[in-house]
């Protein structure tokens, strides 16, 4: 009993602060609307957004599902790709010299400019979304993973060598665990930008999702719906941040 209470304690505590801040923000929102006598088509009061949220809950829910699915799929691809590339780069100088410039070029290419090409190749659905998410989010994971893989203590590598461990076992048992704290740092910033990238992909391709919902609501002057969607996307970003932080604590508790 006491044990589960203690487990619950930190989780509750980590929710109290965000909830308080959210309350203050909502109060501020209301105050701005009242004090400046905001017209509803510019900024509706919070209760109007809440009303829109209740009325269009199913629509918003479906949009969230699309966006989160695309972001998650893209993030997964980005993660695997980034870890593989980082492992390759730290193990071979020649590969690094050949491939890293291409990776950096891809990274700096403005998504806006290459969007038509991507849509041509990958279509208007999840394909383009995944590619856009990968382009935006794999770089921070890769850079941090590279730092992590090369941070492995030399004595640990020598130990594995003396024990007769091959490169795969050395990677799985030593390099990867040592790099986890770095990888999580990259994953956290990649995960939040993956959401934005998924919405960006919707704007570019017109595929359904939260980004398209926001765009449509704005162009049809459905301001309460627009703001409901904005709040939902903010809550989503926070949830992703909290989730990756929790995962980080779980997997790197040995660091304390």
């Amino acid at each position, binding site marked *: 009993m006491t044990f589960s209470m203690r487990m619950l304690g930190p989780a509750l505590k980590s929710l109290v602060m965000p909830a308080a801040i959210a309350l203050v923000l909502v109060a501020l929102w209301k105050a701005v609307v009242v004090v400046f006598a905001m017209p509803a088509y510019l900024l509706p009061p919070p209760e109007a957004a809440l009303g829109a949220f209740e009325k269009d809950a199913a629509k918003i829910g479906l949009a969230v599902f699309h966006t989160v699915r695309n972001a998650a799929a893209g993030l997964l691809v980005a993660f695997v790709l980034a870890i593989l590339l980082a492992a390759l780069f730290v193990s071979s100088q020649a590969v690094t010299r050949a491939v890293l410039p291409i990776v950096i070029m891809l990274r700096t290419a403005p998504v806006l400019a290459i969007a038509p090409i991507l849509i041509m190749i990958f279509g208007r659905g999840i394909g383009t979304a995944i590619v856009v998410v990968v382009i935006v989010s794999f770089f921070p994971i890769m850079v941090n993973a590279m730092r992590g893989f090369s941070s492995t*203590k030399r*004595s*640990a590598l*020598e*130990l*594995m*060598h*003396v*024990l*007769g*461990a091959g490169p795969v*076992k050395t990677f799985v*048992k*030593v390099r990867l*665990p040592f790099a986890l704290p770095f990888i999580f740092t990259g994953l956290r910033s990649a995960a939040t930008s993956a959401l934005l990238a998924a919405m960006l992909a919707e704007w570019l391709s017109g595929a359904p999702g939260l980004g398209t919902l926001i765009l449509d609501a704005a162009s049809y002057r459905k301001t309460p719906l627009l703001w409901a969607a904005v709040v939902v996307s903010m809550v989503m970003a926070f949830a992703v941040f909290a989730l990756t932080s929790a995962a980080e604590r779980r997997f*790197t508790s*040995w*660091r*304390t």
Partner: protein
Amino acid sequence: MSEIVIDRVGKAFEIDGKSVPALVDVSLRFEAGGFYALIGPSGCGKSTLLRLIADILAPTDGVITIGGQPPGVARRQHEIGFVFQEASLLPWRSVIDNIELPLEIAGGPVGDRPRPESLVRLVGLSGFENAKPAQLSGGMQQRVSIARALALRPKVLLLDEPFGALDEITRQRMNLELLRIWQETGTTAVLVTHTIGEAVFMADAVHVLAARPGRLVDTIEVDLPRPRRLALMQTPEFNRLENRVRAALFGDELAETADG
């Protein structure tokens, strides 16, 4: 239980484009199942010599063989146990999981290998099986890495100042334990140490090295009976051997002081 032969071995390190010799023309024979000590001042190449035997480094000159084969063969067959100067435990693994690491790497059946639990007991860490390295003192961590080095019943056991971080009493206890384990397993042991008494107490022969450049200066055969007991350290024979090691270590310096 593998003979180690070191034949005219030299090792130079590349520092700022210049080749700096760390070891020059070292020839040694460690007989199968013997216990040997390497002693010498800091920087004389003791760790480098152990790393050469363990195939962590390759010699610049000369040849090393373990059981008649290159050290890489013994290493890949998981026949080398190495206790590093610093404990080098994996911080996310518990005590027992650190000790099991060599078993995970070698794979295969446990066979006549010691069980990890009995190794924990052997190094006096019962009750700490699930502790993380950060929760242990330096001495306890070092004992875990000794247990880890023994996990595969290595044919060659290389120890790089394993007890440097331990207090005198624990160190004596660990030394006696180590001798017992060595005699039981028949492994060929090479111990690097700073302490003259420890070298004489443990070894069949003490090899004395000097620095700049690292080289072998003398070998003192220790023909004291086994099993060794602590009382041995108070015998004149033991002191005579200690003095011979001391003389080899300090050379002319010692003679000067005695004269003046």
